[in-house]
Structure formats: C-alpha cells, structure tokens
C-alpha cells in the first residue's frame, strides 16, 4: 500500500534552493497528519551527496540521492528517470515538488510517466480521509479551485514563497540511500550549454520577499534606476507592468501579471502602475501592497494596503532616504 510523502529537493550549482525548504516543510506537515514518513530525493553532480544528511533537519527521515555527472545541470529526462525509479521503489502516497522552473518542467513529465493527473502551483493543502485536496489559483489568481487527487501517487507542485518554513532541527540527520541509475541515450538528447545569470544578483521575482515595481508612470527606462536603488536597499528585486515591458523599458522576465509572473512577496510597491485586471491578478496575493500613483482613481488603490496619491518622482527619492535612515538605525 502506498505510504509516505516524497519531496523532490531542488539544487542549482550544488546549492539547495529555497523553494525546497518550503516544500519539505509542507511535506512534513502532511506526513505528520498522516502519521507517515517524509522522504526526499536529491539529484545532482559530484558532491551533491554531502547535502543529503542535512535534509533531515527539515523532517526527511530518508534521503534518496542520485549523484552523477548527467545530473549536474537540471535536465528533464535524466531527472525524470531518477524520480520515477524512486517513486516505483517507494510507492509514496504523495509526491511534492516546487512550482519552480524545474518543478513545473519535471512534475508533469513524471506524472504522465506514472499515469496520474496532478495539481500545479498549489497554495494550500488539506487531507480529507487521506485524499490530498489542493487549493490552487486559476486565471492567474482571479479564481481559486479546491481540487482532489483521486489517483495514487497524488502529485502536486507548490507555489514558491507561499508555504511557511518549519524551524529546522540541527540535531536531526536523515538516513542517506544511494540511488544507482542507468541512463539511456534517449535521456541525454538535450545538452545544457550554459546557465546565464541575468538578474544582476537580485532575487527572482517569484522568490523575492520584496518587489519594487514600475509601470507606465515611470516615463522611461532611465527612471527605473531609483526603483533599483530602493529594491537594493530593501534586499528586494524590481518588477514591471506589461506596459513598461512592451515599451521596451524592462526585460520581459521582469513582467508581473497574467501574461508575466505571478508573485507573492511580503511587500509589493507599485510605482506608477494603474492596476489593470491582468496586473492585479499577478500580484494581488502579495502580503502587503503599497501603491504610489498620482491618479487617485487608479484601480491599484483598491488592492493597496497603503496608498500614496502623489507624483512618484517626488515620493520615491525621499522614500529612499527614509529607508536608508531606517536601515542605518
């Protein structure tokens, strides 16, 4: 009989990614409710095994580790082979991954190979008689659905930045189980040429705790420098509305909204963004929203916890100074 919760831990360049702590934390909550075991699978290149034991601090009793040069960079098929092999050996009740660029690519491939449906990008879970019910946004968050998994393993991906992390217990160590994998030629048809870092050292929008975002009201690309200054002071990142992206002021990867990224930071500061229905869908679940806009009728104010009705060019520079003072205290 299927039992336990299997979490796919994610790494890049040998470092465990933040979303993995969130997925492990939620996996532990579900495993505890079921009275079953939390198990993790970790894949990577040389040296990745050294990270395995520490996943025990996050509640994993056992960690299946696959270490191979073919797994150094994320690629769909080698990773899918490992996860499916572990899933077949373990027969977990539930399999969870982050809804990151890795998890969104890997999970549906694994689900199709296992012949089960799955839930993407969940923001909450409950168990009803052992059945996993996920709460997930649709229409970029204009609607939420409660969806039950009827087949086993019950699979889901978890939206980054939503699930609270548990307090890791440094005294806990996971039992490490080595996974031996034989790759086939068909697994290795994609070649990773390079991984380009493009965010200038700032966190990605989907993972950022604080986002300072600009829209049409920014008037031009050069004015985003002050948003970058504010974001850097706050340890955050810079976003943009579709209008600012389509005008060529910001790269497409900065776009927040229904045809951009859906974000859930602790603080979202919207500067010169009127708040189209598509933009509001993409940032409406941010924990605290600030809107700075000179138009008092801008729809963004209906979502804002704090609204400043004024010219952003007169508000943002003193705001930077105030934040600088606070940070210096």
């Amino acid at each position: 009989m299927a039992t336990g919760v299997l979490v796919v831990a994610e790494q890049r360049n040998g470092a465990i990614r933040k979303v993995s702590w969130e997925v492990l934390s939620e996996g532990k909550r579900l495993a505890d409710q079921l009275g079953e075991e939390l198990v993790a699978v970790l894949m990577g290149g040389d040296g990745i095994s050294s990270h395995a034991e520490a996943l025990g601090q996050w509640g994993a009793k056992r960690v299946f580790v696959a270490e191979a040069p073919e797994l150094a960079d994320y690629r769909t098929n080698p990773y899918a082979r490992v996860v499916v092999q572990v899933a077949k050996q373990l027969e977990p009740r539930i399999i969870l991954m982050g809804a990151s660029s890795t998890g969104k690519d890997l999970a549906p491939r694994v689900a199709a190979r296992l012949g089960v449906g799955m839930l993407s990008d969940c923001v909450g879970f409950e168990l009803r008689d052992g059945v996993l019910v996920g709460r997930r946004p649709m229409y970029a968050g204009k609607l939420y659905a409660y969806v039950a998994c009827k087949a086993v393993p019950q699979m889901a991906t978890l939206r980054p930045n939503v699930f609270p992390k548990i307090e890791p217990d440094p005294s806990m160590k996971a039992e490490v189980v080595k996974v031996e994998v034989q790759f086939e030629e068909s697994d290795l048809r994609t070649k990773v040429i390079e991984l380009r870092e493009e965010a200038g050292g700032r966190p990605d929008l989907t993972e950022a705790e604080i986002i300072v975002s600009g829209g049409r009201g920014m008037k031009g690309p050069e004015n985003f420098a002050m948003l970058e200054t504010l974001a850097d002071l706050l340890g955050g990142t810079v976003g943009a509305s579709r209008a600012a992206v389509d005008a060529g002021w910001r790269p497409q990867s900065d776009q927040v909204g229904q045809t951009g990224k859906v974000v859930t930071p602790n603080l979202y500061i919207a500067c010169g963004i009127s708040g189209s229905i598509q933009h509001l869908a993409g940032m409406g679940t941010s924990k605290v929203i600030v809107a700075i806009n000179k138009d008092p009728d801008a729809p963004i104010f209906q979502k804002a916890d704090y609204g400043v009705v004024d010219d952003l060019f007169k508000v943002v520079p003193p705001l930077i100074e105030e934040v600088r003072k606070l940070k210096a205290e």
Partner: protein
Amino acid sequence: MEIVALMKQVPDTETQIKVNPQGTWIIEDDIKWIMNPYCEFGVEEALRTKEKHGGTVTIVSIGPARAVEAIRTALAMGADKAIHVDDPALVGTTDSLGKARILAKILQSIPFDIIFAGKQAIDDDMAQVGPAVAELLGIPQLTFVNGLEWIDGRTVRVNRQVEGGSQVIECSLPVLITCQKGLNEPRYASLPGIMKAKKKPLETKNLAALGLDPAQVGKEGDTTEILRVELPPPRKPGKIVDGETPEEKAAKLAKLLREEAKVI
C-alpha cells in the same frame, strides 16, 4: 519540415471571472474567447520555422465548437491545416493527462519534426499538457522558451527561462517546445489571410474517430476533481497615507511599513 502547433482557446485576459451559484465552476456566458497568448507565440514560431525550412504547419486543438474561431485565426496567420477534437465526453474535464493522451494519439498518426505549445494556458494555468505530450511521444521537451535559434536544419538552441536567468540548451529534432513571452512578436492575421483561412482544411474529430475511450480520456477518466471554486478573498480596505508634502508622505509610509506592517 513537419511542424505542429498545439493551441487552446481561452477566456480573454480582460475577463472578470464570475462563479456559478453552486460554486462548482465559472459562468461562461459573457466571456470573450481568444487564442491562448502563449499558444500565439507557438503558432508564430511554427510559421517562422516554416519560412526558414519549408514544410507544413498543422494546428491541433481540443475544445468545443467555439474553438473553431481560434483555429481559423491560426490558419489566417498562415498555418496550413488544422485538426480539431470536439466530443461531449470532454466537457468539464480537469486532467491535463487526458488531454495530453488525445493530442499524443493524433501526433502518433501524423508526421512531425517539431511541436510548439504555449508554456501554459492562461485559464487553468496547469502548464502540464506540453511536457505530458512529450512524455507520451517519448521525445525531449524544452519548456519556458523565450529565445530560439537554429544551429542547423535539425538542431535548435534555446533560451529556457529559469529563476534569475536562463538555461541555454541544444537539442536535435524531434522535440516539443513550450513558448514563453519574449520568443517572438506574433503577427496579425491579414485580410487575405482571413479569406484564405476559410478554405484551408480543418478536420473535426470525436474520440471514437480517434479510437479513444471516453472512460480513459474524458471526464470519467479524470484523476483530479474540482470540488469547488471561489473568488479570491477580498483584501481588507487600505489606508491613504496623507501629508502636506511628498517628503512627509514618504516618511509616514516608511514608518508604517516598519512599525505597523513590519515588512521592512
């Protein structure tokens, strides 16, 4: 080259979503339907591939009768032909896997070298069909692609968007690519294009014609079930930060964010 673009019709991004009185699904009556914006990038890339290498672009779409409108749009953009799957057993299906099985079945019956799909449909936001189709066909997938160049007639190099950057990946055909904004600027259908589209071959098939069992790929076969839907909870009313000068407002805002909201 045999080029396929998978395409879905979805509600316009402007749509104000309303929930039915039972709370089981949305009210679809007043919705304006469009081609999924990410599928549009796929159709455009399919057309560019044909312009570069020659060949045929086939659109494959699952949906009720209204989906024909989006299919005709793709044909008007320049695609050569289309296959449309419409079956009452598919109404209200929730699984991406069932849809992927249908698409894979069609793709097993036609030649293909490269398949384009949207990175996700903007209605259910599942982002599963592309990878699931690639799996069922046993071919590689490249997802969230926002840049593509041809190394030679049988090899692509793509930019795959990842957190904080991109992965540059090479792959030989056959391959399935899911398209992200930034890949291209989709063309508009021209008037002559629209006229020509009316005469292009569009085949509508039901599950029986495809030799598929509704119990497996239809609503009956779903392994996920939507129990209920709801609108997002309303946010509590916010406050306007006032002051005599912008500087005063900025100071007040910083103080509120630190002391009240505790986020900075």
